[in-house]
């Protein structure tokens, strides 16, 4: 039984990698964008789902990763893989410094501090014209050698996303993951049984910053153009929507949500103006009626079928 499931999963995985290679180019492009949203949603969920704090300013690290990577490549002429690694390091260092301050606070304060940080970066990137190109942004960001076709980007993105998913899964199933769960359930209790809550929260924040940096760097080199809107609140809020719709605090939730928010509107051909309000509404509906996200749908369905009332 278990073996069969493994084979099934493996087959599914191979199919997911290979099939898009035969898709029309535009569809592959949408899939690559969905990978970026998944990476970024994973990064948001590390704080929202693991630490349990409203992280509405994660775009700070998306932008930092994008700008760092682009600047390393354009100004210092580093090879792209090195810029990529450099961007991750810069994002994580920034995550460490900001996390140190922000994680001393809760809810309201945490929310405003993280949003503010993103806005300060946005203002800086807009005004520091000499370095960042100001509102015009940075163009002609080089692509890595060997990754020229869309299909190559798809494979690269897929490998990166899979690696990040596996890392989150490993962490969730380790001592760290158990500490996160205990903190999310009750911070006081976690403290009382000797969990170093500050340390574990910071760990989640720094890894999340690194993930956002990966997503930002990937985006910068893929699209080859970035501007201060990388730091925009709408990036952060869409990633929050993706995470919550999929199921926060899980491995697969951000995957489902990130894919949904990119792919569904494209294929349903919804007028772009309608997307955000629809997602806003969906966010409210999910939070009120299915707080554990779409990933809990099988369980909710099963419970409903067998007449068990969900204990909230």
């Amino acid at each position, binding site marked *: 039984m278990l073996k069969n499931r493994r084979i099934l999963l493996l087959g599914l995985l191979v199919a997911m990698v290979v099939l898009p290679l035969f898709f029309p180019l535009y569809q592959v492009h949408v899939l690559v964008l969905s990978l970026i949203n998944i990476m970024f949603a994973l990064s948001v969920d590390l704080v*929202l789902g693991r630490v*349990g*704090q*409203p992280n*509405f300013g994660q775009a700070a690290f998306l932008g930092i990763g994008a700008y760092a990577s682009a600047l390393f490549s354009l100004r210092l002429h580093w090879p792209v893989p090195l810029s990529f690694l450099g961007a991750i390091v810069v994002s994580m260092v920034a995550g460490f410094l900001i996390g140190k301050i922000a994680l001393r*606070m*809760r*809810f*309201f*304060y945490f*929310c*405003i*501090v993280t*949003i*503010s940080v993103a*806005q*300060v970066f946005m*203002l800086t990137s*807009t*005004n520091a014209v000499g370095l960042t190109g100001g509102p015009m942004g940075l163009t002609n960001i080089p692509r890595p050698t060997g990754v020229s076709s869309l299909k190559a980007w798809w494979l690269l993105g897929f490998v990166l996303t899979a690696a990040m998913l596996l890392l989150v899964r490993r962490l969730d199933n380790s001592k760290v993951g158990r500490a996160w769960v205990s903190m999310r359930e009750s911070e006081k209790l976690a403290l009382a049984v000797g969990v170093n809550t500050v340390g574990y929260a910071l760990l989640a924040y720094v890894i999340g910053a690194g993930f956002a940096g990966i997503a930002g760097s990937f985006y910068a080199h893929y699209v080859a153009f970035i501007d201060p809107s990388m730091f925009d*609140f709408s990036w952060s*809020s869409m990633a*929050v*929507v993706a995470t*919550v719709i999929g199921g926060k605090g899980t491995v697969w939730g951000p995957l489902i949500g990130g894919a949904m928010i990119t792919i569904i509107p494209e294929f349903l051909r919804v007028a772009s*103006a*309608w997307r*955000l*309000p629809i*997602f*806003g*509404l*969906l*966010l*409210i509906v999910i*939070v*009120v009626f299915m*707080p554990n996200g779409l990933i809990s749908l099988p369980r909710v369905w099963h419970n409903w079928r067998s007449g068990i009332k969900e204990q909230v």
Partner: protein
Amino acid sequence: MNQFVQQAANGLLLGSIYSLIALGLSMIFGMMNIVNVAHGDFYMLGALVAYYTVASFHLPYAVAVVASVAVVGALGAAIERGILRRVRESAMVTTMLITLGLSLLLQNFSLMATGGVPHFIRSPFSPEPLVLGLVHVAPARLFAAVFSILFIIAVHLFLTRTKWGNAMRACFQDKTAASLAAGIDIEKVYALTFALGVGMAALAGTLLGTIFFVDPMMGAKGMTKSFVVVIVGGMGSFVGAIFSGLLLGVTETLAAAYLSSGYKDVVGFILVVLVLTFRPAGLFGKRIR
């Protein structure tokens, strides 16, 4: 020197409206324990309703102000009854997610409705500045400032002198007792609080909409400004919100005049960092969180 006094006066006028938005946010948080991420969008909505009342229905500005507060207040009460009530006992993150959803919803519906074109609310005030001693003041600005101060005083009187105002304060201090001992209908108090809180944001929108452009993206600015004011002043503090609103208005205006207008919006964040470092409960706050 004259220049400085002029800028400081401009700052005070702007700041009094910041206080008004922020008081609404502070009230909602203090009484309902809800961080209203959509607060700025109610401010935006207030300005938009007023704009359409004047531009499409050709009604006078005074009617627009009243209509805007009434419409947004009613919407707030409906949202409280329909949505927020269902998550009353949930973690704070839950209500923040819901208000984030509301923010996306309101902002983008307004974007569709207006097509993103910035507007001006036509007000009956002449563009000729009044000369008051050393300073020149546009009548619209003076009206906005005076009216927001009067409204703040009215809210204060409502909270301290009237039956429902006292009921709101009692619920804030101990809602179990309010319910058990006095039989206060706390569901009504919650709806009233949310309606009044977002109504204050809407009023601020109608006042600023005659001075600055009205567009659907102004909500983000309204949100950050009011968050900054509430944190600097101290959560749930009436005096704090008024003082820090004025403080933010003045420092921002001075920074724009003497430093760089590009970094004007950073001033608020610097204030936040300073306050959180040296006085985490805010300038007038007694309790933390």
